[in-house]
């Protein structure tokens, strides 16, 4: 199903997938929503598995942020969630907006005096997103100069799904005990 612009429907964010995250908190939902818009292509949004991977990685990074940096990060995300919709005369939260409205809201936000907040978020999300070898390859980065073990540590979507399945069953997926350890 697509909307009038040819994109997939506005509620791309699969609530069920989000609720399966290890720590389903509001800010992670916002990361998921932001990633779904930011990294969407004409064919549609990234897969939920890939977006969940993004959320997990950002959560890992966030765990190391203490004090002011954490405050800045959360405040930036909150501003996107609350202020960005207002800039296009819509009610928050951001994640409830239709896709094209979300894009427009982010574009307005980026050009506003709050732009630097979004710039920081965008940088973090891009750094994580394009660490995935498939995403890096998709934009032409061969990663040749990276240490090979770095690339090998990024799990495939299939591996992630099997981890999630194994976690649901209270077990450990075979061959993945070292992932993100």
């Amino acid at each position: 199903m697509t909307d009038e612009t040819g994109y997939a429907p506005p509620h791309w964010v699969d609530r069920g997938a989000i609720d399966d995250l290890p720590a389903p908190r509001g800010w992670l939902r916002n990361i998921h929503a932001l990633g779904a818009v930011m990294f969407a292509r004409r064919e549609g949004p990234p897969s939920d598995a890939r977006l969940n991977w993004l959320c997990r990685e950002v959560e890992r990074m966030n765990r190391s942020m203490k004090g002011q940096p954490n405050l800045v990060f959360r405040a930036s995300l909150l501003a996107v969630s609350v202020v960005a919709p207002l800039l296009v005369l819509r009610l928050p939260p951001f994640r409830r907006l239709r896709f094209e409205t979300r894009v427009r809201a982010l574009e307005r936000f980026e050009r506003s005096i709050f732009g630097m907040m979004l710039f920081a978020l965008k940088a973090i999300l891009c750094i994580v997103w394009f660490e995935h070898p498939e995403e890096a390859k998709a934009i032409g980065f061969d990663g040749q100069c990276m240490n090979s073990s770095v690339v090998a540590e990024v799990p495939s979507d299939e591996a992630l799904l099997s981890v999630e399945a194994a976690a649901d069953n209270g077990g450990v997926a075979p061959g993945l005990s070292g992932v993100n350890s």
Partner: protein
Amino acid sequence: MITRSADVVVVGSGASGAVAASQFAEAGQSVLIVEEGPWVTSKDISAMRPSESIEKVWRGAAMTAAIGVGDSPIINLTMGRCVGGSSVLTGGVCFRTPGHVLKVWRDERRLTEYTDEHLEPYYQEIERICNIEEVPVSMRSKSTTLWGLGAAKMGANLVSNKRNTKGCDGCSQCNFGCPKGAKQSVDLNFLPRAIAAGAEILSDCEVTRVLTKGGRAVGVEGKVKGPDGRRSRVKVHARRVVLAAGGAHTPLLMLKSGIGRRSKQVGRNLTLHPGFRMMARFDDVVDGWKGAMQSAHSTTWEDERITLISVYVPPAVVVSALAGFGPEFMERADNLRHFAMFGGMIHDEGGGRIRRGPGREPLMTYRMSKEDRAAVPNIIRRLGEAYLQAGARELYLPILGHAPVSPDEFRTMDLTKVPARRLECTSQHPLGSCRMGDEPSNSAIDGNGKAWDLDQLYVIDGSIVPTSLGVNPQQTIMTLALRQARRMLDQPLPEA
């Protein structure tokens, strides 16, 4: 409470702390280096993904900024927080302190000893130990070469940089830690020397206060994180305290400790070298990450207070600088292989200030002077025009949310009208916030790094640099640290 004693406690293990600590230890003094960040080996760093590097060795996970005051941009600030400090994360660029800058130090700050001749032996020693070498033209990325071609048509020069590298094969990942261990950061030279001479490093230890007694610094106290993640209080008694926590955190520590009230200069006069980048899209493949991240610079517009220097940040960061979201953004990202990038920084006058913030981090503000603000459009103009001269199809300006512009659009744009808040501005060089000088009324410390109002307290990091440099400061910081350390060794330690 953990209690330790040493002749000298050095707070910070980066470019300055490591250099000084090695000198003290090799002279037979017992030295304890206290570092807020973790110990990560060169091998660890080379195996980190960029996000892990940001998480583990960048300060504040890249969420650190100076708040622009008045007509000034918000400036994102990158600093290291690990054993080796920011030296682990730099592009490795090394400049000797420019002669015209030293002249200002002598003429205006009355630091009469600071001449090229006086600093020459210190420069040479740093260059030898850190293997500072010229980047060969063959190591220039195509991104840099293209800019150089365009700049040549404008009559501008392009001079090879010097960097502290050994066996670098160029992959533009320097800011996340060298994946090949080629960058000769201080964790590979000065720190091992210090340890070999008996120095100890206490990592994961945040110093919260300088201890004083009878007008003298007698140690530091703070909190150290144990292997179980729990924090314990730690107190280090020392006969001499040397601060090397960097341009943002050294003044913060002094302010927290109530030091600097006499001069009222601690935390003032912060300079940042506000930096801007320009991206250009070419028809041909550029693959700008293939080559040294920072291989060359242009001095042509020095009289406009700007230094233009090659930079190609890691590809994911390049992409994050593109405007837009969704399909349009991703289609721009698909052009990654066709992007070139070059950067520039302002030889700024200062106007920054460090204050105590509500948490552990300093509150940084920056008011750009009118002259510096006027230099911003010039940087953008020079950077962009050079790429257009080299045949670029589109320019991606350092203006937040600005769509790419065609050559004609760029040439007719009034860049002076761009609001400061929309400028994408970064800095890696916080300097001058505890500057040296000849009297307390204009400086926080004297010409040898000694605090004006406390005996046995010395400052040796980038915060002592009296003015901005207009070039990358790593070698200046190391050189000053070496000089100040030797001067300290001439002064006998007080009785414990």
